[in-house]
């Protein structure tokens, strides 16, 4: 991977950070807790899934670990428009 690729990846990640959020579909969740277990900064993602609420926590890294680990496809990354009134 070239330096240019690395910088691009970092740019993409930062773009995702400011324009996206992890969004659950409560109807698929069985509260197994894998998402919370694997969150690197201990956000209780499972709680959000129970409530059907997006992970709107300023600490969320949007690293996608919870999305990748969920065995039931409960979570997805959804683009949000932060500055749209």
């Amino acid at each position, binding site marked *: 991977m070239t330096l240019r690729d690395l910088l691009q990846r970092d740019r993409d990640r930062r773009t995702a950070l400011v324009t996206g959020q992890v969004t659950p579909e409560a*109807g*698929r969740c069985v*509260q197994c*807790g*894998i998402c*919370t*277990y694997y969150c690197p900064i201990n956000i209780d993602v499972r*709680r959000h899934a129970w409530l059907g609420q997006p992970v709107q926590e300023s600490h969320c890294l949007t690293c996608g670990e919870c999305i990748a680990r969920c*065995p039931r496809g409960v979570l997805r990354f959804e683009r949000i428009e932060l500055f749209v009134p």
Partner: protein
Amino acid sequence: MPTRYCIVGQGVAGIAAAQAIRAADAAGPITLISDDPHGYYSRPGLAYYLTGEIQRGHLFPWREQEFQQLGLHRVLGRAISLNPAEHRLWLANNVPLVYDRLLLATGASAVRPTLPGSDLPQVIKLDNLADADQMLALARRAQSAVVVGGGITALEIVEGLRQHCRRVHYLLRGQRYWSNVLDEAEARLVMQRLAAEGVRIHTHSELAAIEAKRGRVAAVLTTAGQRIACDLVAIAIGVAPRAELAQAAGLAVARGILVDETLRTSDPDIFAAGDVAQVFDPRAGKALLDTLWNSARSHGHTAGQNMAGGALRYVKPMPLNVTRLAGITTTIIGAVGAGRDADLIGIARGDSELWRELGQALVAEEEHEVNRLRLLVGLTTLVGAVLMGDQRLSRPLQRLIGEQIDITPIRSQLLTPDAPLASLLTRFAEGVR
């Protein structure tokens, strides 16, 4: 005087009901009775606890504070008797509880075989956390394990034991796994994956007896005369709704407790929800059982609202489960099969009787190395689907089948041999947003 609520069962149906009651009635006392000393935890999560993907403590979604916020009075005990006329419920300690509205969310329990040796302590099931703890404790000391049964639970056990035991044998009565939900190709994918992981699958093998040595499991004997040495035997031949309390009290019970669309039983002050409730399904035209987590949650929510004076009607969604079968993520939705599976008595966990209510439908399939899609195509709608592997189509399928969207514009294309089903469906689903 505030309404006194009583909920028997602390699974997701009971918890959802308690939340719905409290949202509608801030004052009425709610008593939550459970005979499971571990309280509320994720029953489906036990599969990941067995494989070591999560630790035990992570199975518990709620902290003590959340129970307190709902003002729940939790009682550990077994409800043994119910008198609907007197509105009284007795626990094993003979203390009567008086209720105004009662919810029976007692769940289902594993069917136990009646074979010689089946009462040995190393013959285990997977109903609850205590069973999972026992299974792990035994598996860590075991060299060889035998699993008998079908459905999702049998595979959860196989995969869990595979992490701990050197040899895992899986006995199937017929030629293939879960024959009334999966088709031959799907079952073959699962069985090939299990075999690749080192699981020894014995088809056409029926358990005849469990042999003991010095009071411990030593081997199983099959009806074909085969003897398989083992240290533990796990049984997953289905579950039965725990409807005894309701039946003894004179409530209407068939396979489960019969309820109407408000989740009311034959007694207007008693409701039932979750695995124990047998709910009318408008698609099948009869009352069916579901043992799905989300059905239980929805039942509980509806029952709770109605216990607190609401008039909510339960609209049964198209039954959906997204699960792992031998490591292959699989979505099962709608009617996909029919008939009986010789490995199961009745229903398994994570199952829906509607899945086996397949009537007239044509089959369209697309298969790649590890991904597979089977569509059951009705006259104007999709009636069901099984999606294995890549799950990008899972949500579009859930929408198309769940909302019974008219697929007439692409129906003939779907039924064309070798049609690119996944791309056809993806484009179509995007177009009907």
